[in-house]
């Protein structure tokens, strides 16, 4: 069946020029979207931004991801990826509450390194939620790249949000109809813009919701972390949720974007969606980083952000 690419293109928000990085050649676009150059021509005519370099069109990877995700073809790579990643959300939630152990490795790369200097990683911050961090090997000062290793134990707990105000604000956000999209991390920090476009993402959603909770008189902060079990570390997904102190004095996490995505991507995920609204589950490792902060730093003085790639494997 002919994919209505024009309709798909009009259904998403392309990354604004200010935040766009057109790094992917047309060959990648064709592979991701399972289409040929004629269909790419149609997407370009429908507004898909591109840059031509050495005679080859290049696209922003987020735009390609969003086109694939909302193409409704069931064959693009983003659709297949998210279908696989969210299989867990339809399983019995008790599996998400048990203790699990993860072999946690993060590779830090300083692309424009200016020389030897200390590395800083916003470490797993799991003890607050009943987990533990052991066998830590933090990188020594160096240049270029480094690796942080640890064993992380996660666990779950049913601690649904109690405060009616917090539940109301969360429900209002979910009902507002924002559309989940893959968005560059620097743009996600501009959460007002993201929501003005009618879009949402985990970091942008968490920053906005945390602000609304604070406005309602609660202590709340968006925090970054890692989503575990993303296909052997082959894929990397940014993650963030809201941490808020509930009326019972306990710290609760609200994983608003995962609740939205699960509802969209996988049938029978009602229990998981409820778990996202206050409870702790064992597939997330919170970090010390706030919602829009970088996870890794190198003190060499380079202005280029450190590239951070996590490989989190379940210990068998």
């Amino acid at each position, binding site marked *: 069946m002919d994919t209505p690419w024009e309709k798909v293109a009009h259904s998403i928000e392309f990354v604004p020029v200010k935040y766009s990085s057109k790094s992917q050649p047309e060959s*990648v676009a064709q*592979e*991701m979207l399972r289409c040929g150059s004629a269909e790419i021509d149609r997407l370009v005519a429908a507004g898909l931004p591109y840059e031509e370099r050495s005679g080859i069109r290049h696209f922003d990877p987020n735009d390609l991801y969003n086109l694939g995700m909302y193409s409704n073809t069931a064959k693009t*790579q983003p659709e*297949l*990826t998210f279908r*696989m*990643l969210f*299989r*867990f959300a339809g399983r019995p939630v008790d599996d998400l509450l048990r203790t699990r152990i993860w072999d946690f490795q993060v590779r830090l790369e300083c692309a424009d390194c200016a020389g030897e200097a200390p590395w800083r990683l916003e470490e797993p911050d799991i003890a607050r939620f009943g987990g533990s961090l052991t066998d830590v090997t933090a990188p020594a000062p160096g240049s270029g790249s480094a690796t942080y290793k640890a064993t992380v134990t996660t666990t779950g707990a049913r601690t649904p949000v109690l405060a009616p105000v917090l539940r109301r604000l969360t429900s209002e956000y979910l009902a507002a109809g924002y559309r989940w999209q893959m968005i560059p991390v620097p743009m996600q920090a501009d959460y007002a813009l993201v929501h003005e476009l009618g879009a949402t993402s985990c970091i942008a959603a968490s920053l906005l919701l945390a602000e609304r909770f604070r406005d309602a008189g609660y202590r709340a902060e968006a925090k970054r972390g890692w989503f*575990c*079990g*993303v*296909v*052997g*570390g*082959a*894929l990397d997904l940014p993650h963030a949720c809201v941490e808020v102190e509930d009326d019972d004095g306990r710290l609760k996490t609200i994983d608003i974007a995962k609740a939205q995505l699960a509802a969209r991507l996988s049938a029978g995920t009602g229990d998981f969606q409820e778990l996202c609204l206050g409870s702790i589950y064992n*597939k997330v490792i919170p970090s010390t980083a706030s919602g829009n902060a970088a996870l890794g730093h190198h003190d060499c003085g380079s202005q280029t952000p450190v590239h951070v790639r996590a*490989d989190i*494997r*379940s210990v*068998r």
Partner: protein
Amino acid sequence: MSEPMKSVQQFILERNPGLDRLDGDLDLIDSRAINSLAFVDFIFLLEELMGEAIDPEELDLDDFRTLNAIEARFFKQEAA
């Protein structure tokens, strides 16, 4: 070579026109013969060939590192 492993080999060769043959111990990850774009497709292919679902949480990149590793991890019974 088993039928499933022939399909695996075909999948990789189709996506790597520069390769004319595959050795069982070629590092498919480091050589980029299976890149991150193709990774999920490859898992779905393995599921189809095995006739059962693969839990993405249980995957280890080393399971995909060579044809020999893939055969041992996913098609052990067929290989035996």
